[in-house]
């Protein structure tokens, strides 16, 4: 059984213009409140195919809430998130992932009892087999193609020596690398990264930037939420600035750098 082919016939196409095929990801007028707190208001965002789009903003701006809305963890009060003609709003996280949207978590959420290699192979298996496949008599050890790829990606991310140890015994930094490996092995059409370099040393951050640059060159669409401006300006093609739950500016990195509204939002936080 496979859910990889989720029908889009019944999906509403609110706000998504079929005439602009290069816009692959569209957030349409999303609102989200927690009690009296407006975490997101009137959020509109377009991401083009192959683009790396950074979402920046001060603490509490609603960046993680927006990402949670995108992957089905939170339901918006209003508006919709559309990926490649499919409305993601209201879909289960596994359905969203099966459409080709992978998320890398800010706080590593790996499978602590599985080995590093199993952690990396698992998302690849789910991509190949769909959301459920009853294959109790197939040997996991015979999955050589997926295993080789998992070893390759893990090694690139510096996890080579840790392949056979339980993920629970990894350091926090290694868990973040594992998170990234789990996202990358799916070759998603859209990769959502939630502060992928937070807590990393500068050398590791630079290595991650280089890795993400190579992924970018392969044409993967990336939405990245990041605090570290060095990462943002090294990778982003376009930037959206979120403040107080609203998008206050959107544009090319140079435009954002010179935008007075952005400077005001960041005042006292960090020099852009």
């Amino acid at each position: 059984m496979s859910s990889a082919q989720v029908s889009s016939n019944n999906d509403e196409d609110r706000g998504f213009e079929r005439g602009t095929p290069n816009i692959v990801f569209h957030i349409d007028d999303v609102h989200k409140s927690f009690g009296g707190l407006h975490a997101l208001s009137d959020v509109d965002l377009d991401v083009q195919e192959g683009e790396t789009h950074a979402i920046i903003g001060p603490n509490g701006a609603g960046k993680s809430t927006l990402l949670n809305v995108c992957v089905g963890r939170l339901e918006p009060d209003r508006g919709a998130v559309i990926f490649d003609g499919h409305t993601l709003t209201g879909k289960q996280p596994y359905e969203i992932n099966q459409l080709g949207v992978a998320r890398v978590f800010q706080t590593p959420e790996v499978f602590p009892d599985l080995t590093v290699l199993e952690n990396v192979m698992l998302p690849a298996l789910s991509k190949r087999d769909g959301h459920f496949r009853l294959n109790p008599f197939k040997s996991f050890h015979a999955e050589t193609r997926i295993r080789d790829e998992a070893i390759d990606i893990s090694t690139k991310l510096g996890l080579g020596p840790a392949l056979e140890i339980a993920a629970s015994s990894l350091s926090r930094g290694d868990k973040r690398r594992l998170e990234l490996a789990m996202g990358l092995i799916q070759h998603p059409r859209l990769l959502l990264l939630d502060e992928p370099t937070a807590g990393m040393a500068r050398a590791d951050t630079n290595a991650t930037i280089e890795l993400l640059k190579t992924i970018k060159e392969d044409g993967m669409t990336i939405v990245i939420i990041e605090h570290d401006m060095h990462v943002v300006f090294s990778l982003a093609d376009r930037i959206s600035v979120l403040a107080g739950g609203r998008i206050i500016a959107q544009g090319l990195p140079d435009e954002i750098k010179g935008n007075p509204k952005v400077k005001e939002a960041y005042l006292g936080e960090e020099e852009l």
Partner: protein
Amino acid sequence: MLSLNARDFQLLLFVAAITMLAPIFLNPFPVDSSLAQFNGGYPDLMQRFVIFGIFAIGFNILFGLTGYLSFGHAAFLGAGSYAAIWMMKLLTMNIIPAIILSIIVAGLFSLAVGFISLRRSGIYFSILTLAFAQMSYSLAYSVLTPITGGETGLQPKLNDPRILDGELAAGETARANLFGLEMGSSYDLAVGGWVFTFNVGYYIAAICMLLAFYASIRIFRSPFGLMLRAVKSNQNRLGYTGVSTRPYTLAAFVISGMYAGVAGGLMVAMDTQAGAERMFWTASGEVVLMTILGGAGTLIGPVLGAGMIKYMENIISKINTTILEAWFAWAPDGLQDVLVSVIYPFVGKGWHLTLGLVFMLVVIFLPGGLMEGFEKIGGLFSRKKGKNSDSVAGSASPAAAE
């Protein structure tokens, strides 16, 4: 070999050797020795070892892999038993159709129960399964009496149709068989003071257990098994990797229910009767104890747990004051009385107390069950061996040291 890696294949061979030779090594004491009551190699007990072994192996696929703790698996065992006895009443005393129907009925029943219970997890799931099992138990005693036989249960009767077997001759009784080979028939081998009993029923049940064990190894080592382990490890995360967890947990639930069905069918094959007491919650609790005692999530642990509990239930429960007095006959009168009165609460009817103490000790000191104990002992030996091989490292080759 058999699509297993070398280590798993060795384990399977080891279990096969143990089960095939069980009638010999479970009777270590000569029949007329005072320790003969510790002999466990009689057919009824050996059959229980392997049948409950199957039950526990199946339960472990659900509990050991996914972490979902069902307190109602005895209901599937009971349903399997009723299905088997009906097959024997209506079609034939041959055990094959009976066991096949047991698996189908238990599978369908577990599909229905699992579909509803798996809407919840944790303690709520456990309570739901417990409620279903107790409901089944009560129904078997009340409204379902025409199907279950109520308090008297079901047994094959002379006037049952048994379409394939034809009518019994005068004085003949219906006996469970495998193409004419009766389950109750045994061959006794006397060697010196020892008597070893080789029973047909035991060997058929043992072969079923080996097949069940092999299937369990395959499940553990499959991508499906990996997903089940991931459910236990971090169920929420699994959704974000594109996996829908409910079909996996439901499949595990149904597979474990089918294992319970095999166990229920085999129980009827060995002793042709079925009653609702098999569905009582204590029976569900027993398989939980077996799995945890042996080591949940390990391949062989549940079989060990099942063996240990059934051994205690059947052997320790038989020790009475007369036996204890005979053991301590060497002691002076006063001391003998003290020893007997101290030990007595732990044996005979008090065997549950011993089981409880063993269970507590295992859970506190060996949370991974008996298997963790064996691993620790194995670790000690390999460390000692390592030290020894270090000391002769100059002369020994690396391969020999391993």
